């Protein structure tokens, strides 16, 4: 293949303590918490807004927040929940029990309120946010990144820093540095399909019946009402008095790491969004005035690439509800691997995994250990978000925004600890980390902590 020798002298920025690539849940968790600890933080985000999947992706819904008795998510995500509630970011009349108590409880939110809240928290913490900017390359050797190349309308800029968090969702920075990764569709046979979510308006939520929707979807599929006979439709979720989001339509066979597949998925996703909006409007009570407002700026990618970490949390850990001394959060969402196709077998597989098989019950949680954030052997690089180190099933459970916020908080906190103590990512004092996180409001119920992280060579 023809190659081009790209050779440039590019300007260098003043060094930062921490560069965070990606301003979604993982990146915001890392940047805000690190800055609150006094670090000089640069947050690089490709769109013009923070919040990632929850805002630009319009998956404006946080689920699995409590265990029937208490809230299991804490720290920054807990703060976001309470602040959004106080500032009218939820549908009027939303009961706080939804996130403070209800088993697997969730809440839909207004993406605009979250965007503004994250803007404000970053400003108040002193995070430097560069919008419309991307990390496009890195200089790294011997498990250490020296600096990253950031590109935007001003051109290229080389940014040196002491620590880096990859919150790109696609493990972009980790891959640029040569860290070992698992790529869906290459290292696993299939790729979980994405959805292009949408903002909807004109709803009468008082007459909306989710259970009825599920039944009518089945009828519609049987009657051939849809362009694809997909029984798995997450559906509509309220985020305001008459507004909300639509999460419907799988774009099967999409590889988010292939630009042609990604591009085609956006166009197909827009068609599907329009199709489902029209169907909801015609078939369900409360939807008579439903209007498709806008589809999301980002594709709702569910799976792409994950690092191979110091620890790969797996289904055995999940089933055992394992607690780790170095866990940086606990969670209770069930395995949620969306159907790979429209077959009966896939529908049954998804349904069993999500609704029955080992679904955590009242009071049950499983822990996520620190090592899932660290590419194996790396000294100053962490990941946060869906590109964490986990097996397929657990990845399906922990890829959601609340878990990503908690992973981000842990990564940012760990980075600051490493900078201040001289420790490395792969050899961090996790007892100290857990103590710091607890001090910031994280819910970490493990009885013991440990200086050394839990390490396990991942299989294969």
């Amino acid at each position, binding site marked *: 293949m023809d*190659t081009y020798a790209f050779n440039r*002298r590019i300007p260098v920025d003043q060094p930062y303590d921490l560069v965070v690539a990606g301003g979604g849940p993982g990146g915001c968790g890392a940047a805000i918490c690190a800055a609150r600890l006094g670090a000089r933080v640069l947050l690089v985000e490709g769109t013009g807004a923070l919040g990632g999947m929850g805002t630009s992706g319009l998956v404006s819904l946080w689920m699995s927040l409590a265990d029937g008795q208490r809230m299991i998510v804490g720290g920054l995500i807990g703060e976001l929940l309470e602040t959004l509630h106080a500032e009218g970011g939820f549908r009027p009349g939303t009961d706080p029990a939804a996130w403070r108590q209800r088993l697997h409880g969730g809440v839909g939110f207004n993406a605009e309120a979250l965007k*503004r809240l994250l803007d404000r928290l970053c400003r108040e913490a002193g995070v430097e946010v560069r919008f419309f900017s991307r990390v*496009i390359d890195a200089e790294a050797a011997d498990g250490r990144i020296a600096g990253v190349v950031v590109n935007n309308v001003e*051109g290229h800029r080389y940014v040196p820093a002491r620590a880096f968090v990859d919150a790109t969702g696609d493990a972009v920075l980790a891959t640029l540095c040569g860290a070992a990764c698992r790529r869906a569709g290459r290292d696993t046979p299939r790729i979980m399909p994405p959805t292009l979510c949408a*903002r909807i308006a*004109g709803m009468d939520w008082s007459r909306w019946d989710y259970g009825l929707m599920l039944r009518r979807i089945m009828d519609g599929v049987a009657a051939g009402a849809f362009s694809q006979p997909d029984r798995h439709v997450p559906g509509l979720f309220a985020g305001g008095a008459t507004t909300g989001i639509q999460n419907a339509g799988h774009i099967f066979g999409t590889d988010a790491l292939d630009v042609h597949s990604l591009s085609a998925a956006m166009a197909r996703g827009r068609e599907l969004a329009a199709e489902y909006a029209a169907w909801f409007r015609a078939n369900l009570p409360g939807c008579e005035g439903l209007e498709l407002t806008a589809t999301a700026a980002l594709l709702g990618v569910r799976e792409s690439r994950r690092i191979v970490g110091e620890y790969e949390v797996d289904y055995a850990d999940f089933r055992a509800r394992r607690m780790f001394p170095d866990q940086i959060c606990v969670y209770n969402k069930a395995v949620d691997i969306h159907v790979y196709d429209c077959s009966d077998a896939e529908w049954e597989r998804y349904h069993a995994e999500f609704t029955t098989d080992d679904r955590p019950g009242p009071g049950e949680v499983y822990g996520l250990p620190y090592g899932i954030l660290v590419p194996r052997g790396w000294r100053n690089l962490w990941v946060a978000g869906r590109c964490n180190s986990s097996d397929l099933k657990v990845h399906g459970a922990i890829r959601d925004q609340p878990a990503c916020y908690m992973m981000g908080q842990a990564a940012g906190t760990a980075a600051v600890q490493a900078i201040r103590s001289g420790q490395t990512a792969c050899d961090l004092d996790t007892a100290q980390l857990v103590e710091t996180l607890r001090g910031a409001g994280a819910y970490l119920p493990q009885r013991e902590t440990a200086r050394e992280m839990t390490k396990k060579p991942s299989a294969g």
Partner: protein
Amino acid sequence: MDTHTFTRRIPVDAGYDVCVLGGGPAGAAAAIAAGRLGARVLLVEGTGCLGGMGTSGLVTAFDPMANGAEMLVGGIMRQIVETLHREGELGPGMSPEIFAKGYMRWTPFRVEGYKRVLDRLATAAGVEVRFFTRLCDAEADSGAGRVEGVVLNNVEGWRMVRAATFIDATGDAVLAAAAGAACREAGRDSPRIMPATMASLFAGPVDWRRCTWQAQQDGLKRALADGFFTQPDRHLPGLSVVGDSLGYLNGGHLFDLNALRCRDLSAGAMLGRRLAKEYLEFFKRYVPGCEQLEHATTASLLGIRESRRIVGEYELNVQDYLARRHFPDQIGLFNKFIDIHPYDCSDAEWARFRAEKDEPRWKLGPGESFGIPYGVLVPRGWKNLWVAGRCVSSDLQVHGVIRVQPTAAMMGQAAGTAAVQALRHGQTACDLDTAALVASLRDQGANLPQAVLARTATRS
């Protein structure tokens, strides 16, 4: 300043006839036109959709396309509007009486319908679209006036693309500047920068009979008197109906925002969101019929009105505009008023803006039009590079007229057609047979009624 030497061998894609940078109104039209003529076209777009300001920017109303007697805008743009109308994707109450005949009438539209129409037209024209892909750099010989290749970046990494011709539809003349073409930067080559806006969609129910343009202006006066706004901004373009329960707001100005500076864009995005919320509250409190408005969404791109323009073979100027000048090589007709938003909140600026917009000595009347000559698309002396959209060559005042979507589309269609003609007949951008170009555009349905054509472009 410290520099870092950055070296990579990057893969090359070659064999394209036309590479279009930017998939907004201009770029989409350029790519569609070139594709329909059978060229191998690559369209590079940074977001996940086509339509630029009209979609990602949420400027969901087309500026006046008719002059009270006839529709001035033809070609692809006309086809788009007629398709949207047929498919019910224009705002309620829109009709050809308005968009094809009206004088100084805007045409609101539904953003999702517009995105899907562009997806379909690009696909049908055989255009290869790469979404989430940005232009990072260029390889050019400015002495010879030739672009050799463009350096792109996306989730797959770096790519050098070689093509026979290039069209810069980035809005900010990014490719032209990177290639070394002469440009005028607002704020550097002119004293002020037209402010930007972050547009919004608001969701109803809205009583549109009461929420008239006048009611909005009256409410604005009362709110200003009350000191309601953080900026005492008298210029409110207003809330237009785009759906049964949806309104499009073009309101709130981001003053002194230099779109070529990441810091300004980032701060502007955050301020834009705060202003959008402020305007939501304004409408609820001060405008009858809007008491129950909710925020549906803010735009994912800032509404940039002015940044950087090329110095072209011809610089269209206010004398041309006031003379209602038609050119042998004109590639589009238009008639909108000089629309340079007030640079600040002063009385002087408000008076200046109002005069240009309303006074007969500045404004074209019913039945009138001026022409946009081919030479505004060509950086002076360049052979295989064109620009289209708001970065074309004009003085400040005419820029204030032609920076809008319908003109961008006409310019894009002309650039795409010119590129293919240059390629096929061994011509260059700066020495194109403009008689042949106009004939080709007329075949495509462009409205170009000039009686006399010319082999060579009109030059400054």
